[in-house]
């Protein structure tokens, strides 16, 4: 039994942290937040050059042939730095789906481009406000309908759509977003540094992938683990920020951090973070070893990551006092990102229900 990343993986993490500390400092995030596109093309290009988009793609398809564990350590650092890039959409979801469910032809076409960052992918699941079930139907290889929110839907080149096939079965379809019959618009959202779009298809040509409902569920499980690492990374940064500030700030002649109410608040934040981290690690181990309890472990990692990031980002604002409520301070960047990450691939109620179902079905 070993619940730690390898030395090499930890080295990748350190390198990622150093790189992002330099290249993705808060002003970069803030610029993306305040821009129209909400996406830092320069940063994305540098990330591509570091090979991060290629990590978990086989060498035969232009990738580095590393494992999901290397992705986990990268994810933690992307989360910590609040990187405004479509990494999760393209790498955890689109790339994985194409690796696993695309035809040989599609794989050999898309994987090298995804690895090289020439193509950005995403995943369109939500058909509108509050509709979890897929209702759009593919007819004669063409799909019409409207999906929102589609994460990074404005910048992505391709997207996977959840839709019904002619027989009414839910399956995954691949579409070229730069092709005919596609309209898209950025939506106002709680975290504009990771923009959401509405994508409307009007008889857009799509390609069926070899993935049904169960495959889709497995894809979401692996994404849940990777996103949990983004969440704990952000969580840690928000906690560190709060501690640093309250140590420096004085009230009543002593550091704010020396008041028991503040200390105990941080202790509770730390506990939530460490439980989430432990669950994420367990999920990573289950993912890397394709363990039978991966579905349960993934749901657990996601539930506690959502809980922890909300708590920590919210109480970090509180610990800052009034300054925490200003646009100028970075507190809200974490709070916004916590909301974003809690929303993508499904929110708490859905994942808690998955968790309890899987737990009660387990031996």
């Amino acid at each position, binding site marked *: 039994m070993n619940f730690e990343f390898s030395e090499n993986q930890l080295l990748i993490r350190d390198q990622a942290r150093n790189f992002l500390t330099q290249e993705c400092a808060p002003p970069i995030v803030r610029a993306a937040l305040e821009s129209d596109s909400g996406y830092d093309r320069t940063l994305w290009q540098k990330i591509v050059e570091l090979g991060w988009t290629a990590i978990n793609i086989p060498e035969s398809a232009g990738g580095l042939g590393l494992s999901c564990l290397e992705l986990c350590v990268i994810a933690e650092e992307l989360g910590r730095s609040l990187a405004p890039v479509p990494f999760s959409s393209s790498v955890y979801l689109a790339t994985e789906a194409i690796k696993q469910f695309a035809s040989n032809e599609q794989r050999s076409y898309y994987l090298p481009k995804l690895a090289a960052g020439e193509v950005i992918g995403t995943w369109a*699941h*939500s058909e*509108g*406000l*509050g*509709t*979890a*079930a897929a209702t759009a139907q593919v007819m004669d290889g063409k799909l019409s309908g409207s999906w*929102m*929110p589609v994460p990074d839907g404005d910048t992505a080149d391709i997207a996977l759509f959840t839709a019904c096939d002619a027989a009414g079965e839910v399956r995954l379809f691949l579409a070229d977003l730069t092709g005919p019959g596609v309209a898209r618009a950025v*939506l*106002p*959202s*709680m*975290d504009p540094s990771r923009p*959401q779009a509405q994508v409307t298809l009007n008889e857009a040509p799509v390609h069926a992938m070899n993935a049904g409902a169960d495959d889709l569920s497995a894809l979401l499980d692996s994404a849940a683990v990777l996103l949990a690492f983004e969440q704990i990374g952000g969580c840690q940064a928000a906690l560190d920020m709060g501690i640093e500030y309250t140590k*420096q*700030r*004085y*009230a*009543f*002649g*002593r*550091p704010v951090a020396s*008041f028991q*109410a*503040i200390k105990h608040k941080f202790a509770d934040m730390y506990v939530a973070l460490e439980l989430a981290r432990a669950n994420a690690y367990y999920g990573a181990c289950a993912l890397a070893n394709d363990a039978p309890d991966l579905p349960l472990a993934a749901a657990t990692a996601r539930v506690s990551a959502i809980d922890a990031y*909300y708590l920590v980002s*919210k109480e970090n*604002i*509180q610990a800052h*006092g*009034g*300054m*925490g*409520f*200003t*646009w*100028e*301070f970075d*507190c*809200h960047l974490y*709070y*916004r990102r916590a*909301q*974003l990450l*809690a*929303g*993508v*691939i*499904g*929110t*708490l*109620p*859905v994942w808690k229900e998955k968790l309890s179902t899987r737990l009660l079905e387990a031996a």
Partner: protein
Amino acid sequence: MDFKDTPELASFRSDVRSWLEANAERRTDKLHMGMEGDAAFQEAKAWYQKKARAGFACLTWPKEYGGAGLTPLHDVVWTQEVEHFKTRDAHFVIGIGNCGPAIMHFAKEEGKRELLPRMASAEDVWCQLFSEPGAGSDVAGLRTRAEREGSDWTLNGQKIWTSGAQYSDYGVVLTRTDPTVSKYRGLTLFMLDMRQPGVEVRPIKQMDGGGHFNEVFFHDAHVPDSYRLGDVGGGWTGALTVLMSERLAISGVQPTGFPQFLDLVKSLELNGQPLASDPIVRDRLASWYSQYAGLQALYKRMLTAVANGGIAGAEASMGKLVGAVMNQEIANYSCQLFGPAGVIQDSAISPERAHFQEQVLFSPGVRLAGGTDEVMRNILAEQVLGLPQEPRADKGMAFQDIPTGPG
């Protein structure tokens, strides 16, 4: 114990209702109305002046200061009736609710007769200038200096979190007049003319993008000694009066998010199922309602106490503490219910949902404004429950010697 009005109040209620029906628009939803922009301010001022002319402003104030000379129970009746209408009082709450009582108590008679009727009729708008960048929860740690210049005073320094400063004609400002004595003893409270060159107002951009608050800078601002409220060095007593009034005022209007959540549960369907039939949602609804109803009933109990000649105590801090936390939790929970779409913040797509998204981003401020959760708990513990203070690191020190950290 009963819910009924006395004949006098019943008659007053009927007057209020008729007047509102004739002069205000019924509201159709429970959505929050913030104060935004100059147009909203002009509209609010016009509304308030109409209300004042009809004799419904400052119901409990003495007539000689522009009030109606009625009882707190009349105020309750007004509050209950006005809830069903679209009205805009927010710009005047701070002046009339917080500053007014302190002026009534500490100003000289001449100042009262000059300024209070104009406040009551919304001719003048007032703001409250206490918080500073280095003095939040520790309000008395403030550094804005007021120095004697002849018989008058000159102010230099900076205030923050001043609601409505941009609309204000006057302010009540807490200043340090003596840094060589202990921090609570060297403070003095003044009224201040905001329309003078020495006062500069700059808006603060909030984390939710809004701008309800301001920074206010004083560069040799001038204050006549006749505008002093209370004794030199006695400002803390006056400040406590303002803060207590603030908490009482807040506790009646503290957003809890509950009415909006109830509406949502009643109206929304998700995946073809009414939210109202989801057992988990019902369970949360019951928990929040029991708190919400408790706050409502607590407020009624406080008003009964006030009507019986008592004073509202620090219990008012409960409404602030519970309501602010509930407001944030409800907003977050609602957005989680919305699923992936919860992150979309577009009132054009769904106004009822956008409310909760706005509140996710605004609610952290509610937990901070007017005293943090932690300050509220301290007040309850020390002032209501009589628990001993913590050992004070700054006790007995001259203000100028208190450690302020590396910042």
